[in-house]
């Protein structure tokens, strides 16, 4: 390829974008709308995922001690708890503190407690688990083990609720994945078809270019660049629309997060690649390569 040819290819590319601005604009809008569906879906998924994470982070395991356990045994239990796998932090809660907490929880009904002469609550340890160990298998095994220890009366973490929640989360991800895949494939389909249609629209131009002896490279590059640019512009447009939707949603659901910047970059690049590949695939048939 001569350097002159490269320059003409560049002119051809920019010229084509300008001449075909209307069909390009229509394609970009179609693509942007379908991409909007995809990233809205992604944003909803990410928000739900972070909500799930936050909720599970708040889980605490309570280890209630037998009444009248000696300070020595209690400290011993604390040390052993600390060395349990997955334990992040162990806090001691004396029966007095527990009663105080309870009073606070009851609020204005706390006078009821005045009727109780003796503090009925046990001393306890409150455990915060590391994120990756918050799973029903791990928790159940630990609760079983620790429950056997001398001086431990009971281990409690809201097992039934936790397991139910875990199942719900698992099926959510499953459905989400399937749906995501469907949406993703549809978007790829829409984009490559849109690109294909714009190429079909210039079949005459391609034919004439071939007639006067343009190489396949000369013919292809403008269309590939066009496809990539359509991908970039439409993905940015989709992100812009999502930003508006996000603003609007924030009024009703404060704390809803937007997509992260690095994810946006990956998304835009991916769309450019899909656009370029769509062009290439469409041209392949056209140029009988």
């Amino acid at each position, binding site marked *: 390829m001569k350097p*002159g*040819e490269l320059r003409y290819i560049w002119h051809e590319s920019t010229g084509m974008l300008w001449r075909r601005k209307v069909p390009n604009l229509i394609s970009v809008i179609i693509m942007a709308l379908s991409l909007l569906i995809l990233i809205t879906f992604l944003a909803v998924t990410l928000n739900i995922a972070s909500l799930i994470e936050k909720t599970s982070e708040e889980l605490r395991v309570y280890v209630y001690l037998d009444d009248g356990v000696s300070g020595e045994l209690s400290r011993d239990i604390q040390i052993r708890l600390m060395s349990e796998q997955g334990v992040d932090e162990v806090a001691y809660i004396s029966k007095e503190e527990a009663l105080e907490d309870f009073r606070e929880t009851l609020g204005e009904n706390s006078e009821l407690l005045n009727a109780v002469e003796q503090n009925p609550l046990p001393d306890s340890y409150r455990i915060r688990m590391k994120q990756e160990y918050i799973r029903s298998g791990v928790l159940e095994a630990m609760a079983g083990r620790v429950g056997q220890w001398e001086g431990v009366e009971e281990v409690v973490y809201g097992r039934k609720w936790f397991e139910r929640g875990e199942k719900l989360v698992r099926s959510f991800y499953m459905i989400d994945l399937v749906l995501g895949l469907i949406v993703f494939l549809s978007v790829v389909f829409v984009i490559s078809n849109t690109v294909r249609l714009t190429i079909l629209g210039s079949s*005459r*131009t391609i034919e004439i270019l*071939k*007639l*006067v*002896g343009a*190489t396949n490279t000369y013919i292809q590059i403008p269309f590939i660049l066009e496809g990539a640019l359509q991908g970039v512009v439409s993905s940015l447009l989709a992100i812009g629309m999502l930003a508006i939707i996000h603003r609007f949603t924030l009024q009703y659901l404060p704390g809803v997060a937007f997509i992260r910047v690095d994810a946006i970059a990956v998304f835009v690049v991916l769309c450019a690649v899909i656009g370029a590949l769509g062009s290439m695939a469409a041209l392949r048939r056209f140029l009988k390569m």
Partner: protein
Amino acid sequence: MNQEKRIIAGVYHVSRGLGKHFSLEDINLQVANGEFVFLVGPSGAGKSTLLKLMYMDDFPDKGQVVVGQFVSTRMKRKSIPDLRRKIGIIFQDFRLLEDRTVFENVALAMKVTGAGMPEIKKQITDILTRVGLYHKRYDYPPALSGGEQQRVAIARAVANRPAILFADEPTGNLDPVATKNILELLFKINAGGTAVLMATHDIELVRSFGQRIIYLEEGRVALDKEMIFVGDIRDRIGGSSVSESASRLSEYDITGGEEE
């Protein structure tokens, strides 16, 4: 034109079937440099099909086509652009890019070869002047008459100074005056040394010119003769049946002569 006669395009024992009902059968013809040849025949005779084989948009089932150093049986897809840059092609429907100016349309043929812009400007100024459209170089094709559009197409076809110009019914969409002008332009180009092979169904149009005529009928060459018509060509070949025409071929001693 007394310089040494060199064959620049040849069709040798070419057959090509299209669909169920049509085929070109054992076509033989040669065009020498600087020659002007009319390819005549009724609509559906296979003129366009034959030209397509010659600019290698299609390939024979049997036999071979040779244009310059390009040989159909040894042709790679990659060499097709190279061939197209060395020949010129025009059509009934002009095939101009309507969203580009006259200048850009003609320049395209040179741009794809990677020619430098100063060279392109100089050459196009020259060609557009010759076809009489320099003053309309910034117009778009839809603003031009049919005859003018065909002139632009011709300018584009000869921009790279081809050795041969293939013309498929170039006057098919033009009124008599424009037709005459285009034919004159083609003769002028031919006088400059470019061979021209022009297909047309219009016998009346070509009968008075005294150029070589190849008469194609139902996919066969029925006549190939340099001649001035005295009467209708159909009188000459005696009706329209191919076998009859073929029997007359020997009488006129036509195609075989130049083959090696």
